């Protein structure tokens, strides 16, 4: 008899547990629900929390849990979570990962939400919102965006007696300055020339009049005359020893070299502004200028998008939150805290004002000549091949044209796989 009693209790406990689990997914209106919102940036977490708090004030029934994952684990965790049904409800998305998620039906279609909330898509940089459109549907509202400029160290320019970069600079000016600024005795280099796509050779390929990937995403442009020209901008700097070697830049990233004042110029994005601003050692020493022009002006642009998980248990509340994340209030919080350059038009002034020591307007002016970051096909796969194929060109072991043609062949092969 006693045994049966235990069994019954155990059964009852198990049943309670089951109902407790299913009770959570109950979708009755007015019930309190919790949504998770994942990001990969410790630096931006305070602003994300502030946005969440603001949303909760207006929606007391919805609790937002901000979750920060390290960059190295972010995509693996998200992928496994999405496949296994445990992904965060809302999360940051990047253009080069976006296609796989949209194609796999993992993201909340925002088209209806945009309509019902009267969200004006013209408020976002077209290049960014386009990069989150798949099959004609919008799957993420742009959170921020970035364009590229020349971060430069005024102290090193002064020491070498070189004029600061400005909007009149051509490629030749940049090359000349990089050589003049290089001082082997002090261990100072004029520029950092890593194999960097987004801040580096994509921009110069475009500036040389080339493209990166063609419009229908079937072929790349690395081996074309303009493509090679764009790559040569960087290999020339390496050949002139105006940059740390690739080995040096592997051990110590370009941005760290710049922060340690070992390189005078670093071509990169707006997203470093807050980090540099918070670095006391750089106070009053650095500024930013537009990228130099080749045949024309150009920069790639991209931005983070706020996406929702299609498998979320609370789709209605989630859409409400995503609409808020895409709105002006969330943008203003990001701007006022200096966190990033918000994507929402008209909210960028507070960002400029938050770090008045830098000519940050450069990044906003660059929107006029910006081109979306190419993300055709399996972007993570072909982008990952860059160092392997272009490395020999950077180190001077292979002619640039040869390395570029081989890289193009490898990229085109990846693009050919649907």
């Amino acid at each position: 008899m006693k045994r049966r009693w235990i069994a019954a209790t155990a059964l009852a406990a198990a049943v309670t547990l089951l109902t407790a689990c299913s009770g959570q997914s109950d979708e009755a209106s007015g019930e309190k629900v919790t949504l998770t919102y994942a990001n990969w940036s410790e630096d931006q977490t305070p602003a994300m929390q502030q946005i969440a708090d603001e949303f909760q004030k207006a929606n007391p029934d919805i609790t937002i849990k901000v979750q920060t994952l390290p960059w190295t684990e972010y995509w693996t965790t998200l992928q496994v979570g999405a496949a296994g049904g445990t992904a965060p409800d809302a999360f940051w998305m990047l253009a080069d990962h976006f296609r796989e998620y949209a194609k796999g039906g993992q993201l909340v279609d925002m088209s209806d939400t945009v309509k019902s909330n009267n969200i004006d898509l013209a408020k976002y940089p077209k290049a960014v919102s386009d990069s989150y459109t798949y099959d004609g549907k919008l799957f993420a509202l742009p959170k921020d965006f970035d364009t590229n400029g020349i971060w430069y160290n005024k102290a090193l320019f002064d020491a070498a007696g070189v004029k600061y970069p400005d909007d009149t600079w051509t490629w030749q000016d940049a090359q000349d300055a990089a050589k003049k600024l290089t001082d082997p005795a002090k261990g100072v280099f004029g520029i950092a020339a890593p194999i960097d796509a987004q801040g580096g050779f994509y921009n110069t390929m475009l500036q040389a009049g080339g493209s990166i990937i063609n419009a229908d995403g079937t072929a790349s442009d690395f081996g074309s005359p303009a493509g090679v020209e764009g790559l040569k901008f960087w290999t020339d700097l390496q050949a002139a020893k105006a940059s740390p070697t690739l080995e040096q830049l592997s051990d110590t990233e370009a941005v760290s070299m710049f922060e340690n004042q070992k390189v005078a110029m670093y071509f990169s994005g707006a997203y470093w502004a807050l980090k540099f601003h918070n670095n006391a050692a750089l106070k009053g020493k650095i500024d930013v200028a537009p990228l130099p022009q080749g045949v024309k002006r150009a920069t790639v642009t991209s931005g983070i998008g706020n996406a929702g998980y299609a498998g979320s248990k609370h789709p209605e509340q989630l859409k409400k939150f995503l609409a808020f994340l895409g709105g002006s209030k969330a943008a203003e919080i990001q701007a006022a805290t200096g966190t990033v350059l918000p994507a929402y038009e008209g909210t960028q002034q507070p960002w400029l004002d938050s770090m008045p020591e830098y000519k940050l307007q450069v990044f906003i002016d660059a929107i006029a000549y910006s081109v979306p970051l190419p993300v055709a096909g399996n972007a993570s796969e072909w982008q990952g091949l860059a160092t392997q194929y272009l490395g020999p060109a950077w180190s001077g072991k292979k002619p640039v044209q040869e390395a570029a043609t081989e890289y193009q062949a490898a990229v085109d092969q990846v693009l050919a796989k649907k």
Partner: protein
Amino acid sequence: MTSSATKLPRRPSGRRGGVSAPNGWWALAFIAPATIGLLLLYVWPFLRTVIDSFQDVPAFGPATWVGTDNYTALLHDPDFWKAFGNSALYTAIVLLGVPVAIALAALIEQVGRGRALYRVLFFLPVVTLPVAIGMVWRFIYNGDFGLLNTVLSWFGVDGQFWVADPRFTIYAFGVVGIWMGLGINLIILGAGLQAIPKALYEASALDGAGRVRQFFRITVPLLSPSIFFVTVLTVIGALQMFDLNFIMLRGVNNTALADSKTIVYLFYEKAFVQFHQGYGAAIAVVLLLVIMIATALQFRLQRSWVFYD
């Protein structure tokens, strides 16, 4: 699992009739959590991996059966063979740590007081996060500002870019691998040493055997079961190395990465970065086979050198 489960009730019934069936079910109920856990967490993922290796599995969405395509592609993939070679070289280097561990274990055994302190010191890397170890060694190996090159410069030796120059990376990993494995090997070998009867040493000393002779004629043969065990563990662990590769060559811009991937790193990259999960599964299955063969081979070979009394 089911076969052992159905057998369970029978066994007691042979000796004491009557209570068999209900007791059997209770036993089943008690082992159920462990069994279910094992099935769900080990057997099912294992089977899924084997199945996936015969499929084209995109990041999300339905998989398509491709037969042995993944394996054929694998055999013709130069990246796979390079990774295979890298893992083999790394394993060979880390195996050099076994004789080091034997010698150190014997030396620590000689220490009178403070033996525990040495053990703790050598064991620390074992309980340290591999990520932290990778980060620290990344600094040590830094070509411009690293500790290693600074020390080398005192002796007039030119430093190298240990983890950015593909000529050195695997060796650089190997040194860290030896250091990381030393602690656990010392514990196992130390336990083996203490099981050797002291009388043997006393008797051989009376017969005029010196320390060195004792080490090779008594210590090593009697320690051989422990040495064998440590060797098997080391090979399995080394073939599965991923963390050092992942942490120390972090960033797609590392110039050495393309030439320094281990098998498990390649698996990670294919399955989780490039979204080719079927191909990744095939790599995992091949690695499993390689480890099985390597281990079976060692069990075959041990007959000729491991001494069981």
